[in-house]
């Protein structure tokens, strides 16, 4: 094959197939508290989630790495990134968290996706006019 042949060929495309192999999952969660005036910093939130992991899965579960990518203190909405392997663990510990500092609370998992881009919009909140 001569170099001239290579030039004539159209641009190469690379085909990428992901067989459920995306390394991370992203979650958009919202914390609902009984007393809505409670303020929570990002550090508090992460500590709270870790305590939930620890109470359900013990020390090994608390070692699960997850990241708090973004957190909005006003709406208590957070974006979490977690290893796909740890998704079930993290999600179930969020589900079973029921009290924060002796007041009832609940995590509402709004969206879960292997792609961060998918969390930019929510089809369930679309306003079709």
């Amino acid at each position, binding site marked *: 094959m001569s170099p001239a042949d290579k030039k004539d060929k159209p641009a190469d495309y690379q085909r990428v197939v992901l067989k459920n192999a995306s390394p991370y999952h992203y979650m958009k969660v919202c914390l609902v508290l009984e007393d809505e005036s409670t303020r929570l910093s990002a550090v508090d939130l992460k500590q709270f989630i870790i305590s939930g992991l620890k109470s359900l899965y013990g020390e090994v579960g608390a070692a699960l790495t997850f990241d708090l990518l973004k957190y909005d203190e006003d709406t208590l909405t957070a974006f979490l990134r977690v290893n796909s392997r740890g998704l079930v663990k993290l999600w179930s510990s969020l*589900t*079973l968290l*029921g009290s924060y500092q002796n007041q*009832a609370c*609940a995590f509402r998992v709004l969206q879960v996706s292997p792609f961060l881009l998918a969390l930019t919009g929510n089809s369930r909140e679309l306003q079709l006019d």
Partner: protein
Amino acid sequence: MSVFMDLNLSFTADKKLLQSVVETAAHLGFSTVAINYVFEPTAKKKQDIPSPTPINELIDQLPVVQGRSRPIRVLNRLTIVMSDSSHFRPNAAEYRCFDLLAVQPTTDKLFHAACMTYDVDIICISVTEKLPFFFKRAPVNGAVDRGVVFEVSYSAAIRDSTMRRYTIANAVSLMDTCKGKNVILSSAAEKPLELRGPYDITNLGLLFGLSDGDAKEAVSSTCRSVVLHAETRRTASGIISTMRSCSESSCQQEAPPAAADSEAPAAKRAKHQLPDD
């Protein structure tokens, strides 16, 4: 795919609280919920079976289910906590006011009877104590064949960490026996913050030893089959149903005024009479 259902919301006399629980359920995406009345007979004195408050008295305006633009469907359900076989009376007229009928057996014998013979829709698994008996294959398979389902409720697991241990242990031991078939997961929530979304519950089902598919069925299609099973329970083999007509016609004159608690549509009994005619 079938819609999501939560067939256990605890009844509270506080109307406002109940309304907010139903509203939260609708917001989370449940299309059907059932309000649960628990009846626990004690040996000492005779108690009355609670009668359901009509839905339109409880909730003025049914909230719209998220993403479906349709109001939520609310059913009534009775749960009988049994410690003696006399606590469940087959063909009791009081049971007919309820859409769903559930029993919670507390002994091995009653569990066997509930699985094999009782005409109920749901068998509740205790989640607040160590399992008082062992699930045997035979009654569980019998229940699966008859279309009766087992219910595990999760709100106790949210309230308390000891209950969480019992919930998980009892659920896993049930799943070992029934292999994930005919199981529903429901909340038994008293407050809105004890409710969780359908996908959260699906994920929780994985923790209880269900497979991915079974976990999703536990909040959707199995619940649907329970509701359908409950409807056939009121009819003769699901073919003929009887209902009282509203108009006071002459043919109803011989019927006593309190027809509801004596000779209300006895559909199942009619089935046995058929060969005699």
